[in-house]
């Protein structure tokens, strides 16, 4: 009789432990789900801030930015510099340098007023293995130093992040 009672007690304890560990397991699964959703939202935030910093880099790139006696003009692209920058940026020996700056992105500039021209591609490197893709369009002045005429343009920056 006593033997049976003791056995029941042991089974009770084991059952309590099993329930306890089951609850612990459920809690742990819930916790990891919350953490992984936080990580995903953090990753998206990091990707977005990376995309913004690439756009900032493009906007202040001395290779294309208008300047007068080394004083840069904001939101202005020197079209003569742009023509030269395209060939310099796309030189094979400079590709690694610009990859470090722009990573997987596409930067193109388009005249939209007075005439609507075709987009000129400044830099382009894409990957098929990406998680997020962001596009930023920034209106800029396109300044031709030869004719001293300003045109209205749009710089389009598409970034891919892993």
């Amino acid at each position: 009789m006593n033997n049976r009672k003791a056995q029941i007690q042991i089974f009770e304890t084991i059952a309590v432990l099993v329930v306890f560990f089951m609850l612990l397991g459920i809690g742990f699964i819930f916790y990891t789900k919350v953490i992984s959703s936080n990580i995903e939202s953090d990753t998206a935030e990091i990707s977005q801030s990376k995309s913004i910093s690439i756009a900032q880099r493009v906007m202040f790139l001395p290779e294309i930015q208008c300047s007068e006696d080394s004083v840069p003009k904001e939101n202005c692209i020197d079209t003569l510099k742009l023509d030269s920058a395209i060939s310099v940026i796309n030189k094979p020996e400079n590709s690694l340098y610009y990859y470090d700056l722009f990573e997987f992105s596409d930067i193109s500039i388009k005249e939209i007023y007075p005439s609507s021209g075709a987009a000129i591609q400044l830099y382009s490197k894409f990957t098929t293995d990406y998680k997020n893709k962001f596009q930023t369009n920034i209106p800029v002045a396109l300044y031709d130093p030869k004719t001293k005429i300003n045109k209205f343009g749009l710089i389009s920056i598409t970034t891919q992040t892993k």
Partner: protein
Amino acid sequence: MRNKKAFEIQFNWIFVLIAGAAILVIFSLVIFKQKSLSEQSTNSIALRSIESVVAGTSVSTDVSSLITVPDLSIGVDCGKISIGKISKQYPRLVLFSPSLIKGNKIIAQTLSFSAPYKSSNLLFMTSQQIKYILIGDSPLIKSINKSLSSEINKEIFSSYDPSKIKNSNNYKVRFVFDNIGSSPLTFPNSLSKMPDGDVTALKITGNLDNGVIDFYENNAGSFVNKGTSYYIGKAALIGAIYADTVEHYECNIKNVFARHGIVSDVYLSRTTDLNNDAFLSSECKQAYSTSLSLISNIGAASRNLARATPLSQSDVNIIIGSSDPLSIQNKETQKFSCPLIY
């Protein structure tokens, strides 16, 4: 029968002990793991905020800001920033700073590098807990004092008297001497207990446009020369003040010259275009054709400097020697209402 009961009771206790111990071990493991994860997460967040500061401030010129960050130690190496065990590589990073930034207040400053055309923004960072002591009363020291961020913990002395230097418990102290002569610098007694490498000095021989810089470090209670380098322009000189070792300065300045070489190629191609334009006046063309060789020389010397260790004085001199004539040609183009060279 009694023996059997005693065994049952003992077994119950042993079972409870084992189960209790297992639960305690599991919880302890979870707590330790969580603690380490939380530390890593804090460091990672801090690193990301530093990254945003670097990205945000490095695009704007001539700005200075005081940034509040978590109270952590930030290690800055050649192209690498680390906080605790978390570190990240930045291959083209131009960040002149001491090797260790401590405290929750960081000073960030930017200045543009121009030789003579602008090619990059130099980013400087330091801690408010580092003391900068400027020695001299020359226009150069006064200009450095004006150029350094007002948030910096700095003192200025017209002449060097080691007995006047007080120890105010800073984890690093940096001296800046202007044209002090070749005699070995006397180490202040008040700082003799500071660990080796925490008291550094920069001796400048030159002016605001260019010159030679000697890096010193405390070693067993005296200043030891750790290397010599060169600077072109105020921004690079300020960079040498923020960077506490010659290696860190040269690593950054090489990245600056690499970029200057690429920007020079853009200006060379642009000036060639202008020179080939049939509609521009002969005065304009004269200025452009004279400038072509100057830009080409600056580009070639910059590329050499980006590869050389240590920096070669002859290449530095080529850039200095070509910059002034190029700025004269730029003024000529302005005079004749031609498109400017830069």
